[in-house]
């Protein structure tokens, strides 16, 4: 009797286990993609939305049946904004987790630090950081073989701003920038491209990333009476600059911000001072403003709806970079399968990919795939942006 009962129970267990296993095996194998973001630490405002976006996109892809019937497994590491940790994380992803491609890191400095790793292990890496140097090898004058990046370069933002200034007939400008990597890189691009656009930089001021007040720098600029001011920073300082600019009665001198101003939180934090501030933004920031026939309209609107519904927080443009990076890799995986060289070749030949921040056209000489057309100039009106042209 007892023996019989045990037998029955064992049989039931056996079959239900089989059922469970087959349930888990709805996917026929998996594709592993690595991700390294600065989820915590100094770059957390980048890494946090990037992580959330990558998770959300991977989930969406798997719910829709995965890639060619295989599950997309996202292996995510937090580098905490630390170059050593970032380096280790990328090595671990490649050697231990055997991922077929890596997206990230979030920061330019860290991306530069892991280029040698990606090159050594011959693994495609799609960075989510801005610097032009990530996809430009100074020695050869060409991109690194295995490294790509999804965000627009700061040089494109500078070109967009200079083009706008030129169309307004302004050529006497003051620049003010934060001394962090983002500000320093933007500043050097502003200076490098000035001659090409006939811009005369009459003041070049700086401030620290944690400074409390920029009145002194702006007073100096006011004394030199430029026709426009370009500020290059991220974080709270760009709001402080905007407020100081307004308080000093300098609203008559148009203030241009970098693409780092791309969050409506900044308009709110400026408490009215941001009215009339201009900045270049990617399509992802202004999904609602894009005309209905714009190629990016549907992609950006979908992302906006999904993200705000899932996380109940405003969309940040930085998440869009992770969306672009992961989607580029996923497209390559769909076409080339689990073959690193195949993925790399596919990405390099990707044309007309519609992403959050522009329409990407990669080539062997261009591992970013975007042009200055990926930026739209917008102006702050009330508590929102409006397109200008």
């Amino acid at each position, binding site marked *: 009797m007892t023996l019989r009962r045990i037998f029955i129970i064992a049989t039931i267990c056996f079959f239900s286990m089989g059922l469970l296993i087959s349930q888990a095996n709805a996917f026929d194998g998996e594709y592993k993609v690595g991700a390294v973001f600065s989820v915590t630490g100094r770059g957390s405002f980048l890494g946090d939305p990037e992580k959330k976006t990558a998770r959300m996109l991977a989930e969406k892809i798997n719910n829709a049946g995965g890639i060619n019937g295989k599950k997309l497994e996202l292996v995510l590491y937090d580098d905490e904004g630390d170059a050593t940790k970032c380096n280790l994380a990328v090595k671990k992803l490649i050697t231990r987790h055997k991922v077929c491609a890596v997206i990230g890191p979030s920061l330019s400095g860290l991306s530069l630090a892991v280029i040698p790793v990606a090159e050594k292990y011959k693994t495609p890496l799609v960075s989510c950081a801005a610097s032009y140097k990530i996809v430009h090898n100074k020695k050869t004058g060409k991109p690194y073989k295995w490294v790509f990046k999804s965000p627009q370069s700061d040089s494109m933002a500078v070109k967009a701003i200079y083009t706008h200034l030129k169309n307004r007939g302004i050529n006497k400008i003051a620049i003010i920038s934060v001394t962090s990597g983002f500000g320093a890189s933007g500043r050097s691009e502003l200076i490098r491209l000035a001659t090409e656009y006939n811009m005369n930089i009459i003041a070049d001021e700086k401030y620290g990333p944690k400074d409390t007040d920029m009145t002194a720098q702006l007073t100096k600029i006011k004394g030199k009476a430029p026709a426009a001011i370009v500020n290059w920073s991220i974080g709270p300082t760009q709001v402080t600059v905007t407020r100081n600019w307004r308080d000093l009665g300098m609203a*008559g001198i148009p203030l241009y911000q970098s693409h780092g101003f791309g969050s409506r939180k900044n308009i709110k934090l400026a408490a009215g001072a941001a009215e009339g501030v201009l900045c270049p933004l990617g399509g992802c920031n202004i999904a609602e403003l894009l005309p209905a026939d714009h190629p990016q309209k549907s992609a950006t609107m979908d992302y906006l709806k999904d993200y705000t519904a899932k996380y109940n927080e405003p969309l940040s443009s930085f998440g869009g970079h992770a969306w672009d990076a992961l989607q580029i890799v996923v497209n390559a995986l769909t076409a080339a399968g689990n073959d690193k060289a195949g993925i790399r070749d596919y990405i390099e030949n990707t044309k007309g990919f519609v992403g959050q921040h522009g329409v990407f056209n990669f080539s062997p000489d261009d591992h970013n795939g975007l042009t200055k057309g990926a930026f739209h100039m917008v102006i702050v009106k009330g508590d929102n942006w409006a397109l200008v042209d």
Partner: protein
Amino acid sequence: MEKITLASQLLQYLITGLTVGSVYAMVAVGFNIIYNVTEIINFAQGEFVMLGGLIMVSLHVAVGLPIILAFPATIVLVTMIGILIDRLAIRPIRRPSVLTLIVATIAVSILIKGTASLIWGKDPFDLPAFSGRNPITFLGAVVQPQYFWVIGFLIITAVALSIFFNRTIIGKAMTACADNADAASLVGINVKQMILLSFALSAAIGAVAGIAITPISLMEYDRGAMLAVKGFGAVILGGLGSFPGAILGGLIMGSIESFGAGLIHSGYKDAFALIVLLIILFFKPSGLMGSIEISRIKRF
């Protein structure tokens, strides 16, 4: 857009420098209160400023308390945190040496910063200015109403502290601990209570500084460290342990930064402050108002 005259520019640099310097001075005073009683440098001093700003934002903006209620409530909360630090991190250490206690305050500052990033997230927060944001023009220079509040708070803090330390029994008892803790306990002063009080006071002053500066510069979870560094510079400049020195040091640091950024080069403004600091220490190693005799008998 009319051009601004050099005189107005100079006035503007001075006003900005004094405002920023007032915050450094308040942080410096906080350092000194704890140093005088315990001989330790409290590395969590900047976190008090950050907590003051962020708690005020929560109480005033999120909860909706009027400023008149949110202000004292914030100070009380931050003071409690100061007391907790003494109870949980400083007092339990067995056989404390000055160095272990200093390391403990570093741990506390990391803990507070981490907790704050979990509670408030990593975004900066804004606090409405106490008397609006309409700037006043004065001889061509622009003055934010909030500047008056910041400088006013420094004056109130300085007056209140000098009355406290010179006119009240508890204040004098604290000064006694500062002079010689063993002798103070011999005459019946509870030194442990005084240490607790020093953490409470210094947390309260940090909170005031945080509340005052947030409407100008916003506040986020990791701003404390930078303010602590500037405040510490002010302490050293003025002379470790000296209150007038701390205030003077803070105002000088702020002004040098402002004038340096405006007149010479904004990229090196932090360097100017440090260069002046080094020059002064070279000629007067105990700081502007410090005394070499007192610093000899201190352990640190």
